[in-house]
């Protein structure tokens, strides 16, 4: 029972990370109709900046600041130079251009930060574990990540449904030309949304850095999962990102925990081991394929 709860918490933690990444990605895709493969790179840039700042100053606050500023600034530059030329292009063009950018970013980060990946240790205030339930101690850092996810979800909800900017974002998603005709600078709106997405990635990077390995290629790995999340949840809707993150995060964590024992019950070890490891890794893709076959637009698509 406690084991199950621990796995659930693991799932929630992964879901939180995925939500931080997918919220920005779904907004960019939903509002600007741009597939952005550089999204993972912002996450990586955030993590690297955070690790470097933490190593230099020892302060977690500095690390957060570095991550947000680093990722946000880089996102801004990318938008100004490349993304704004892709708004009217086909998806294939967007995929390839942003892929080129992502590969470039990998090389750039390698050059700037060196080959040996920086480590970021858990900051003191978030170190250690806490007794979630009698008998179940769970690391504070992971709980903090879950908390960060909840915070961002609430913040985004407030931003989108309660502020003027959020209203413009929703309007822009529905009818960009109309917003344009009303005299509102749609370009500025897009840049804002894009930068917001990048900043969220940076935040994800600094929160994940103490927990996961900070290395080149960390962006791409989670980027694919992030795309799976928004496709399953429904492109363009933050609610869809939430639903998708929870579904994917829990499937991955619970699958990781329980598939091996399930397969070993049914098959001899030399068959069950490779099968279970393949199933575990492939589980979220199988889920996505099933969802797409019945609900091609995702579970909670934005009205378009």
């Amino acid at each position, binding site marked *: 029972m406690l084991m199950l709860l621990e796995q659930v918490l693991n799932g929630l933690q992964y879901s939180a990370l995925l939500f931080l990444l997918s919220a920005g990605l779904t907004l960019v*895709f939903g509002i600007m109709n741009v*597939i952005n493969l550089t999204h993972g790179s912002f996450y990586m840039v955030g993590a690297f900046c955070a690790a470097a700042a933490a190593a230099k100053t020892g302060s977690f606050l500095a690390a957060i600041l570095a991550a947000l500023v680093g990722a946000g600034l880089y996102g801004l530059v990318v938008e100004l130079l*490349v993304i704004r*030329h*892709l708004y009217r*292009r086909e*998806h*294939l*063009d967007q*995929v*390839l*251009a942003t*892929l*080129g*950018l*992502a*590969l*470039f*970013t*990998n*090389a*750039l980060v*390698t*050059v700037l930060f060196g080959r040996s990946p920086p480590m970021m240790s858990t900051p003191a205030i978030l170190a250690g574990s806490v007794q979630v339930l009698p008998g179940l101690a769970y690391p504070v850092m992971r709980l903090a990540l879950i908390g960060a996810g909840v915070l961002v979800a609430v913040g985004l909800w407030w931003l989108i449904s309660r502020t003027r900017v959020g209203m413009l974002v929703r309007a822009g998603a529905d009818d960009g030309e109309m917003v344009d005709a009303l005299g509102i600078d749609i370009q500025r709106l897009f840049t804002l949304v894009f930068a917001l997405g990048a900043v969220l990635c940076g935040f994800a990077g600094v929160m994940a850095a103490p927990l996961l390995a900070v290395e080149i290629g960390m962006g*791409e790995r989670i980027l*694919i999962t992030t*795309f*799976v999340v928004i*496709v399953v949840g429904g*492109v363009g809707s933050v609610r869809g990102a939430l639903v998708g993150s929870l579904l994917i995060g829990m499937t991955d964590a619970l699958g990781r925990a329980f598939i091996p024992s399930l397969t070993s019950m049914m098959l001899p070890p030399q068959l069950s*081991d*490779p*099968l279970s*490891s*393949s199933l575990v*890794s*492939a589980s979220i*893709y*199988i889920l*996505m*394929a099933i969802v*797409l*076959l019945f609900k*091609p*637009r995702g579970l909670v698509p934005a009205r378009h």
Partner: protein
Amino acid sequence: MSRKLLVNAIGLLLFALVPAIAAATGKSFLVSLCTQFAIYALAAVSLDLIMGYGAMVSFGHAAFFALGGYTVGIIGFHMGQGDTILGWAGSSSALVVWPLAVAVSALAGLAIGFLSLRTTGVQFIMITLAFGQMLYFILVGLVIYGGDDGLPIDARNTLPDINLGSPTTFYYTCLALMALWIGLCRRIVHSPFGMALRGIKQNVRRSVGLGYAPLRYRLTAFAISAAGAGLAGALWANYALFVSPDMASWQKSGELMAMVILGGLGSIFGPVAGVAVYLGLEQAATAFTEHWMLILGPVLVLVVLFGKRGIYGWLTGSKHHD
């Protein structure tokens, strides 16, 4: 048309002369590099069939490349063990193994295509990516065939009277197969089937209104494209004498897509030029720095933003394709 013909002829001539050039200049790696080129060109042209002519962006096409390669690898593995494969003793003849690799890939293409083509747009991109990733993880999980470490292959497949062990002979074989496949794709593109496929790409509403069933055409093109990628994979397995799950990775799919667009989408010879540019850039850039993506990344971005016709379109001065 004649400028196109000239460019193609010169290109083919140059490639036919590579072994001679290599021997003369003592740069034997040229033959190896050009063998890679021929194999990738075969794969890229296959991908262009569906991307450029069918408007299907398959982000998991490397899966078929891997299937072709692993067909060769697995057959070789079991023969080396003295095993049988489902009762069959196996074969080392290219005339058996290579068509088998093509068939396996084509069948997989039919299955994956049938499921994926229920979606369009970004969902299609993602679901093909998903299938590619699934295969990747299956291959990683198949520890018996090396898993993550990959599977070495003892020897190349054999052809009667032709020594595929010799780099030059193998190169010419790959070049010939590439040329044959390109010729075949060219015929397909100009055939009634090809016109229908291109029509569906330009205006699906009109095609349906005329009575065309889009799925039939797209699925057939997808399967043919998969078959070509499978053949390329089988050739790669013979070239490198090694296969690994990376052959199915999304990075490999991205590489193939980049090669196609560098050369120019929707022209049969374009991807060939694209592969040449890609491999050439890799060679040139790695001479300067190990971070060759610092150069290729921006090049790719620039080509996408400004050079829609690609290198081939620029060379031949054509604004639109066949």
